């Protein structure tokens, strides 16, 4: 791996991990009532919009299957399609660069910008550049990058981190945004109100200046078409289009999984993506460019950064189908409460919980696969049918395995899991264990319980173990046809109802 002067070398250039675990990081999100309120309102609205526009298409399930199949096909022959794409870009007058990781990609982009002699660049919102921490790398090299997506600009000016794939500032409300603009935007009207139109107007004035002066733009790509070398950016504000047409040098950083084989395949995704992400039938601006026009310089940086490793895992590779629509975030009950920052990665929510640990390796993100109740809502909405719950379970297994190899001695958890399995693989041991539990009925009344029960009783009562297990009842009298009345009647007056009686 190469490094270069001016680059911070202490931490890897990926924004895919933090030192905090999910449960730790979730605490502040859970306690932030303003954020919880903002998130709930925003996700509830978008969920309903999505459901409506998806219901309009009677072939949604077929589209979804097609979306999954095209990606799977492309991923299965990725080297072939990447070469095809490279050849097409070169034939169109562009230059292709290959980056193994974030450091390399940042180095390439910085070199390209330096070569233009410019120190200012404008950016289209891009998850890939977010992932590699490009802005920080550019700043370190004396280059100022301005985000032109409104939400991204809010995050940038607020010296904040994005918390949603599509709406990076979803955790902020209008008055917070006003304060951020007043504090950090040049030449802003001091009488700025928190009216959305006024705020958008201020951002527009700010951005116009940048667009008109910038000679270099950096974009991501939603799709790359292998056989034509076309790049495609899908957005809502039109700022992307300004970036893509005005500057003289255009640098696109694209994950290698973004390819589709042919132009025709876009038909599928341009239906799936806007409906899933913004709940619109079509997004307002779709920009496609195939090569450069006169006097323009055009580069594509193809980013690996853990994608090949992900591809190598047959049980995890379907995460690379993801088209970053964020539908899974909007339906996730964990995301809605803990907030995007809890995931410690630019990819939050359900997809983040599987993608981040795959890109970094599970050792670096061991708590993320557990940051889900496995309710499955994410799988149901995913437009490319990524079975996120099954993948989470797979990655949990990887985490357990990696801990096993790290620690020679079993952890408390693995010891209790082994013990439970040992007990449960024998009728004699299992029966004995249930009897012991009945005998220890009073244990649930103890003032302090050991972990993990302590975590349970912080907010929930424990059920009182019954006097007799079902199997003991069965042996005693259940096998005869005299099953007792077992109905639960709230009027019957049993006061010990904790859970089903």
């Amino acid at each position, binding site marked *: 791996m190469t490094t270069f002067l001016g680059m911070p070398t202490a931490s890897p250039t990926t924004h895919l991990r933090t030192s905090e675990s999910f*449960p730790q990081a*979730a605490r502040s999100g*859970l306690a932030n009532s303003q954020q919880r309120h903002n998130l709930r309102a925003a996700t509830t609205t978008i969920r309903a919009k999505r459901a409506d526009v998806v219901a309009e298409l009677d072939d949604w399930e077929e589209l979804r299957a097609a979306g999954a199949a095209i990606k799977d096909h492309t991923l299965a022959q990725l080297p072939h399609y990447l070469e095809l794409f490279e050849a097409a870009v070169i034939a169109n007058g562009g230059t292709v660069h290959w980056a193994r990781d974030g450091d390399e990609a940042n180095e390439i982009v910085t070199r390209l910008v330096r070569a233009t002699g410019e120190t200012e660049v404008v950016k289209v919102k891009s998850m890939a550049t977010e992932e590699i921490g490009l802005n920080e790398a550019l700043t370190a090299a004396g280059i100022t990058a301005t985000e032109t997506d409104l939400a991204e600009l809010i995050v940038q000016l607020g010296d904040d981190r994005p918390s949603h794939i599509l709406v990076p500032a979803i955790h902020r409300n209008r008055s917070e945004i006003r304060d951020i603009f007043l504090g950090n935007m040049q030449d802003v009207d001091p009488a700025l109100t928190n009216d959305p139109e006024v705020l958008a107007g201020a951002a527009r004035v700010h951005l116009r200046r940048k667009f008109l002066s910038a000679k270099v733009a950096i974009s991501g790509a939603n799709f790359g078409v292998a056989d034509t070398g076309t790049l495609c950016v899908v957005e809502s504000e039109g700022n992307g289009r300004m970036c893509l047409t005005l500057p003289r040098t255009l640098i696109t950083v694209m994950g290698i999984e973004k390819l589709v084989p042919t132009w025709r395949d876009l038909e599928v995704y341009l239906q799936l993506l806007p409906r899933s992400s913004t709940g619109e039938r079509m997004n307002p601006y779709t920009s496609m460019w195939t090569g450069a026009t006169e006097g323009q310089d055009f580069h594509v940086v193809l980013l690996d950064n853990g994608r090949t490793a992900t591809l190598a895992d047959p049980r995890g590779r379907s995460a690379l189908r993801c088209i970053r629509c964020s539908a899974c975030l909007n339906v996730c*009950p*964990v995301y809605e*409460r803990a907030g995007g920052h809890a995931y410690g990665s630019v990819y939050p929510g359900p997809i983040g919980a599987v993608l981040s640990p795959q890109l970094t390796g599970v050792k670096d993100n061991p708590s993320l*696969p*557990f940051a889900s*109740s*496995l*309710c*499955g*809502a994410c799988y*149901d909405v995913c437009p490319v049918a990524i079975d996120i719950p*099954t993948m989470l*379970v797979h990655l*949990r*297994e*990887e*985490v*357990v395995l990696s801990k096993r190899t790290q620690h020679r001695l079993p952890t408390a*958890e693995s010891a209790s*899991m082994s013990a*439970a*399995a040992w007990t*449960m*693989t024998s*009728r004699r041991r*299992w029966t004995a*264990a*249930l009897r012991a539990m009945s005998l220890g009925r009073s244990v649930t009344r103890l003032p302090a319980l050991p972990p*993990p029960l302590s*975590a*349970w009783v*912080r*907010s*929930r*009562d424990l059920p009182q*173990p*019954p006097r*007799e297990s*079902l*199997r003991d*009842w*069965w042996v005693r009298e259940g*096998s005869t*046809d005299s*099953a*007792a*009345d*077992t*109905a*639960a*009647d*709230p009027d019957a007056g049993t006061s010990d*109802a*904790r*859970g*089903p*009686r």
Partner: protein
Amino acid sequence: MRLALFATCLVDGLFPDVGKATVAVLRRLGQEVEFPLEQTCCGQMHVNTGYGREAYPLVRRYVDTFEPYDAVVTPSGSCAGAIRHQHLELARQFGDEALLRRVESIAQRTYELSEFLVDVLGVTDVGASYPHRVTYHPTCHSLRVLRVGDRPLQLLRAVDGLDLVELPDADTCCGFGGTFALKNSQTSTAMLADKIRAIQSTDAQMCVAGDASCLMHIGGGMSRLSIGTETVHLAQILASTKDAR
């Protein structure tokens, strides 16, 4: 039809009344039901916590125990889901072709209670009587893994005297999620709080579901808050009759 009850480890050990109620309903409908004592646990807790290797012998055990039966009924959407999906996954993962075929066969014959009643026995009115105001929480695994759909509601609507009120945001997870409730206790609690609020808004006396695990979580939370609403398993409502009162 040789019919077996798979009680699940949780019902066997903590909520035997749910098992007894399941037996009672089946018997009332003329079924002879057996409780093979070799049964223990479907292994879901292990799989979902990342211990597939530990769950593997439990999958074998399930197959060995229930293979002789024509059908297996379980009062748990979650465990039925684990048997139909995770058991197959595990057999595949361990490359055990012979076991995979056996798992496929028994998984097809394993039913969650409402599925068995509606699909196999073709009954929606089981002759139950339960004169209370009740709201139904469709647990995630019943809803999204098994796709039980409105079968539990069909059964509940046929219960004499039962006043079924709709639960707002019914399909949102209650926050249980097995070891999620321990590992991410605070997030789990935040989800639970919203679920309880929704249940309270219905003014129901009881919250009913087809999974003892989720009910343990919801019931444990409601008990802690002393809000005066209780939980009841679907089997218990279906087992309740006029004569019994």
